[in-house]
């Protein structure tokens, strides 16, 4: 007779939920409409503060913010870092190359190592879906997803909402056409959800092979005809992700044919339509160079608002959404 006492029983507690006092921004799906409106309001307060000569606020003095980037990035990593500095937090930037990651350290062990410094926030970018969730589970810090594979990039969606609202004065009822490689785009997945949350209308325009089967369930229309952008207030052009195009996958016959049929050019836009792009742009592929540099393009605004929106996100996570003025006053007192 074998009884339990005679052999090893492997004990496994189910994954513990993250401590309840830690808040994360892992996906647009984590946000309510109230959250979005509060974050955009906070970002507006920061925008005002940035017009001052001295741009630094004491709000997060003594806090530690780590950025952990496993993928190359210019605008996202720089704007998170600057956002943290503008709020007077201590920052620590880890890049996958040149760190223990190069020596084969697992994400879990890297997260545990960083957690030993007791950071308040860890900002993670990783090529694999679910990496920020893993960091959130093991680190004890508040985690911001700065892009995980093809899944989510929630701060990009927030800065896009901010940009649209600043330009058009509203979000409710705005019609946005997303054009291009939806299949490989975390920007598209985040933005579709965010636009749906605030009552905007979304049309996806792409070659049939770059529209994921079942994407309509997110609450958007789809079209394979570039003519479908005509009704939109904003034409949001997605990057044609050449680095994610597996050789021989044949999503499109050629970039040349893609540009001819789906490239956003001045001829395909009507006057007054705003043009956005998350960068970096493949000029002449998904977006004509003249349009990118033209008066209707909001691309630089997107980069600029990225800073205040990320300040708002960091601030919100660490002050549980208290109004900016009150918290700043508290710090000064």
């Amino acid at each position, binding site marked *: *007779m*074998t*009884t*339990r006492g005679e*052999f090893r*029983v*492997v*004990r*496994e*507690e*189910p*994954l513990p939920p993250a401590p309840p006092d830690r808040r994360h921004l892992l996906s647009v799906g984590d946000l309510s409409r109230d959250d979005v409106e509060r974050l955009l309001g906070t970002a507006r307060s920061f925008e005002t503060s940035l017009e001052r000569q001295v741009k630094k606020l004491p709000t997060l003095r003594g806090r530690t913010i780590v950025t952990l980037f496993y993928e190359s990035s210019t605008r996202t990593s720089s704007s998170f870092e600057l956002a943290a500095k503008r709020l007077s937090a201590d920052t620590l930037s880890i890049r996958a190359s040149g760190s223990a990651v190069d020596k084969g350290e*697992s*994400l*879990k062990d890297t997260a545990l190592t960083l957690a030993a410094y007791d950071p308040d926030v860890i900002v993670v970018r*990783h090529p*694999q*879906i*679910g*990496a920020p*969730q*893993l960091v959130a589970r093991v680190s004890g810090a508040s985690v911001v997803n700065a892009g*995980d*594979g*093809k*899944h*989510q990039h929630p701060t990009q969606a927030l800065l896009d909402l901010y940009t649209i609202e600043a330009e058009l004065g509203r979000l409710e009822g705005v019609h946005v056409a997303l054009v291009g490689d939806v299949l*490989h785009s*975390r920007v598209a*997945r985040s933005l579709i959800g965010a636009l749906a949350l605030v009552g905007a209308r979304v049309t996806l325009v792409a070659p049939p092979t770059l529209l*994921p*089967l*079942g*994407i309509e*369930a*997110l609450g958007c229309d789809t079209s394979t005809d570039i003519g479908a952008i005509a009704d939109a207030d904003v034409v949001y052009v997605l990057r044609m992700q050449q680095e994610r195009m*597996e050789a021989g996958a044949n999503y499109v016959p050629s970039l040349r044919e893609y540009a001819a049929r789906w490239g956003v050019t001045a001829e395909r836009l009507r006057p007054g339509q705003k043009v956005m792009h998350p960068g970096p742009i493949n000029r002449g592929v998904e977006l004509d160079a003249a349009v990118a540099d033209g008066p209707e393009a909001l691309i630089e605004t997107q980069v600029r608002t990225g800073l205040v929106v990320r300040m708002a996100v960091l601030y919100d996570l660490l002050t549980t959404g208290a109004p900016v003025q009150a918290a700043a006053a508290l710090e000064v007192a």
Partner: protein
Amino acid sequence: MLVRREARPDDLVVRGARVLDPVAGIDAVLDVRIDGGTIAALGEDLHPNGHRVVEGRGLVLAPAFVDPHVHLRTPGREDEETIASGTRAAAAGGFCALLAMPNTDPVVDSAAVLGALVDLARAEAEVPVGFLAAITKGQRGEELAELGELSDRGAVAFSDDGRPVESPALMRRALQYSAVTDRPLAVHCEEPSLSRSGQMHEGAVSAELGFAPYPSLAESLMVERDLRLAEAESRPLHLLHLSARGSVEALRVAQACGVEASGEVTPHHLSRTDEAVRTLDPNTKMNPPLRGDDDRAALIEALRDGTIAAVATDHAPHARHEKEVPFEAAPFGVTGLETAFAALFTHLVQPGLLRLETLLERMSDGPARIFGLPRPRIAVGEPANLVLLDLERRWRVGADGFRSRSVNSWLLGERVRGQVRLTVADGRAVFQR
């Protein structure tokens, strides 16, 4: 073909349980007496004859389960599972027999490797184990393994499980040549050019999460191909871990046309859909992936009507550190031996989707029949292969630990209903709680 550690058979009386053997047509409250490992008497108020008595009042005593699809990870990954730990897990799950897949390191593709495993099982298997051998050398899909010699040495069946036999010509040859044995081929149906880099079922959930898709077609196209080949060669064919509606429909049609084809389905595909992947928990990642509602409904229907005659756990242990990674980096596979009955009692029988009798048959007689194994039966003179089940008992998966060396259960932390209280395998009480 089935081997286990030598041990003295038990004398035992199980008193007052509801004895339920759907194949033998028994459903009555009875005492069961086991003398020297053989069922010696069934009746009311049996004299214990000095045997140890197990109280069965309020419990169900059924033929023990047979799992036709288990990964024991031996040789090669004994850190994940051994024959000893895997068969203890099987005992705790109510199994009296299991079949181990050959995708080990080295692959079970030669009489030498198979012979060493059989010897090891004789030394440490708590529950009788049979071994499948590879269809092709190294499971590389290039040259046939020595099916004749492997069969002579006791291979129960042949499989390249984990991967398909990609070439239709080689699959055809394998079917033809397998006629020198009386053993079936058991195939993992996956068209790799359609599933390549796929992480989960293609549908609204993969669209939202951004995972590379592994469409249902990747399975059902290959199922159709292999059924056609089996039909042409008039050879038996077993389809492993079916997940898609299209596969089930093809199997049903083939069976109606007289093809000697069988299928199996896992508890996780019967209980869960791709919605579970929203958690991004690597324990929702397996091959084939969890599919849509419509697929799940088709699997349940096929299990009910007998198109799929067997439940198989596809118990696939993985080291903790290999599963504690982002979903995309995690290996495919989940454990299932210790939770199979509770999972299906909770998710199919309780909600009224499947009768208890059907579940018991599909977990025991069905798989035994397909692979020509001894069929567990509650009748005087039969070897005792019994499971005593507490259908009222609720428990939390993992709270008590696992007998398996791995903890990657797809049910980890869940509350389930239905618990194994006693397992008698080949005349020996191998588990009791």
